[in-house]
């Protein structure tokens, strides 16, 4: 091999080491761009997800919605939408309505419910006072003798990152 040939081979090797490094980064960037695009395409705003979950608090008889007995109809309990039965607005009923995993429940949505005028407050079991956004629903509150108009404020905590080991 002539001297020129040796020099050429050496130069090309250095070039390909650098080119290989740059090309690997470019290919990885391409893969990341596609992944990011897919994530953005399929993401749903947290307000929508949290809002749909929160609907149960005021509309489901399994949560706090007021219902009266209706013995002559096929469904024995007639539920009234957008209502809160104060007798059911308790931590025990909240555990029946929405209970997250005790160890990893911070990864789910968690809520704090507050009745503005009545002042009653309830939290889900992994709510750590880190609200990301707040929902407001006008509700009729059954206090035992009649309905009273109030505002239900729902502070929503989105999934939190895993706590770091000390």
């Amino acid at each position: 091999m002539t001297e020129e040939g040796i020099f050429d081979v050496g130069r090309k090797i250095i070039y390909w080491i650098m080119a290989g490094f740059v090309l690997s980064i470019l290919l990885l960037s391409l893969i990341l761009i596609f992944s990011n695009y897919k994530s953005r395409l399929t993401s749903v705003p947290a307000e929508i997800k949290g809002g749909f979950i929160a609907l149960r608090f005021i509309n489901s008889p399994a949560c706090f919605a007021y219902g009266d007995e209706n013995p002559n109809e096929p469904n024995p309990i007639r539920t009234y939408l957008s209502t809160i039965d104060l007798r059911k607005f308790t931590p025990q009923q909240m555990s029946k309505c929405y209970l997250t995993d005790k160890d990893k429940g911070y990864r789910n949505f968690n809520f704090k419910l507050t009745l503005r005028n009545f002042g009653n407050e309830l939290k889900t079991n992994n709510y750590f006072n880190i609200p990301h956004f707040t929902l407001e629903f006008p509700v009729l509150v059954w206090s035992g003798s009649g309905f009273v108009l109030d505002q239900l404020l729902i502070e929503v905590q989105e999934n939190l990152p895993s706590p770091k080991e000390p």
Partner: protein
Amino acid sequence: MKIRMNKKGTNIILVMFELMAVVMVVYIAIEVGAKAATEKSIVKTMASNDLAMMVNVLIATPGDVIVQYPRDLSELKVALLPSSVVVYEEDFRTDASAVQNPVILPDGYALSGIVEHESKVCLIKDKHFISVEGCPII
């Protein structure tokens, strides 16, 4: 014995290697792009998100309900597990690309049902039981 290689011979071998490397890089880039364009992960993710939100709304709806999912799911399978919605292609236990969305149920509620390759999928709420089935023909 010394092997003498002139500069022209060296260049031909190097050019061949360079061409091979370029062809390989272009092939990988095209494969990644084509795979991203044709894979079903986006459809699965959107279906799983939508069905989980539909289950949450059904929980918030008193009485019995039947609701149809508007997209065609004939290429996918849907399973309602005890605390999640899964959309997958093969077996949800082994399919690494299955998309799972957790759902927190109130006491007394249950999820059930598996639907495979149905174009019209319906969620049916019967008292406290929510199931997934092919939509009834009306």
